[in-house]
């Protein structure tokens, strides 16, 4: 019994040691990316790791404002991909070099499949007769939604203002809300929702910048990831996910 326990302990120590050793031999790269980039960045991560077998990429997704705040507080990000230029400017003190715009996006209305509330356009979200959710104006998708509504002369009456676009998408996908304003790419990745186009959506283009951070331990590797995202392979993956060219 005690010999078995000793063997288990020895094995655990051995696994722990080899675990440490392999981690030391591999390079780690941490990428902070906007919630709306979840789909393409999963593929970009796999593609970059395939091209660099000794690199372990970790992508952290969240609302861009939240990620920018975390980077300012010293979060271990090597690369930051934001959903708008405003949040990249917020993180600027911790950013090295010039951010590059690598993708664009537009807004659309997400409705549960079958559009049970019969949403036809953005003005349906202004009369308060349906349950709609949008992003809070403090985060990029909310700022873009506000601009779009103002340019259409509308005041939206949402049931909730969420902290990230994935929260909006979730509330529509689960049927909690009749409609939600999200990015065009979000509708493509969530099978439980369908899109209702917004007239004049192309007047408000969201531009996604990417940059390496000042604290990146291996700035050459971080730069290589940025080059990969902005290069032909990255462009193709982003285009597949519905993002526009910069």
């Amino acid at each position, binding site marked *: 019994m005690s010999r078995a326990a000793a063997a288990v302990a020895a094995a655990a120590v051995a696994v722990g040691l080899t675990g440490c050793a392999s981690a030391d031999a591999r390079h780690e790269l941490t990428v902070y990316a906007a919630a709306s980039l979840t789909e393409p960045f999963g593929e970009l991560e796999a593609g970059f790791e395939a091209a660099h077998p000794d690199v372990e990429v970790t992508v952290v997704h969240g609302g861009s404002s939240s990620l920018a705040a975390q980077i300012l507080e010293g979060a271990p990000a090597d690369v930051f991909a934001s959903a708008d230029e405003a949040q990249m400017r917020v993180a600027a003190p911790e950013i090295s070099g010039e951010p590059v715009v690598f993708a664009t996006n537009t807004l659309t209305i997400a409705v549960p499949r079958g559009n049970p509330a019969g949403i036809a356009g953005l003005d349906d979200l202004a009369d308060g007769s349906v349950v709609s959710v949008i992003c809070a104006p403090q985060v990029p998708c909310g700022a873009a939604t506000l601009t779009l509504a103002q340019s259409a002369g509308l005041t939206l009456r949402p049931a909730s*203002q969420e902290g990230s676009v994935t929260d909006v998408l979730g509330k529509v996908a689960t*049927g909690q809300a009749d409609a939600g304003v999200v990015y065009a790419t979000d509708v493509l990745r969530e099978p439980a929702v369908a899109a209702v186009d917004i007239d004049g959506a192309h007047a408000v283009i969201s531009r996604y910048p990417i940059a390496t951070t000042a604290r990146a331990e291996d700035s050459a590797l971080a730069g290589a990831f940025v080059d990969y995202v902005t290069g032909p392979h990255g462009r193709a993956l982003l285009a597949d996910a519905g993002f526009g060219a910069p």
Partner: protein
Amino acid sequence: MPRWMLPLALVGAALIAVPLLATLLRLDWSRAPQLLSSPAALDALSLSLRTAAAATILCVLLGVPLGYALAQWRSRLQPTVRALILAPLVLPPVVGGLALLYAFGRRGLLGESLHALGIEIAFSTAAVVVAQTFVALPFMVLAVESSVGALTGHHESLSATLGASRTTTLRHVTLPALRPALITGTVLVFARALGEFGATLTFAGSLPGVTRTLPLEIYLQRESDADAAVALAVMLVALAVTVVALAYRPLARRAP
């Protein structure tokens, strides 16, 4: 106390005190009055106070009978039911929010029937109160249950022998004996309701003046105006310290 415990005790105290003091030091005192009196802050504060007060009333109305019943119930099922009722004490609030969604949400277990009756809870102030009550109720149940369990029953029997009805006995004998537990329970329930975040965000959403309580406002402001978030945070820290000082005072006095 052995001397070697002292450094550990100091580390423990520092782990809690340092972050709270650091928040205080981060506060921009010159801007604080203006930040705390902004319309968004006042909306959130007013909503928080109203919903926490409503949740506290619900917790007293429901928690006292529930705690009483649990203390007196003799059954093999009692431990299981008790564990279920007290689960929100240790459950991550976001899980509580999901559970509420699956019960009262539009596509939830009861939500569809409620919808048919024209009652919509999700995204409303009522949803905030339900979420707060869900997470706070066990505090009241626990306070009442342990206090009822500690009663000997002699006074109640005596009261009954003298011909008092059960309700009269409850009002004039049992409740006065439970007074310290009721006060502690009420203060803790109010504080827990005031601090509710995860279940509210998941179940009720976040809309200024309707569902965006102080913790939700702090979470959002943190991203755009950190100074405003700090000012609100300091207010909640002060409130929490006051509440704990009030609620735990009787216990501290009783300790040897």
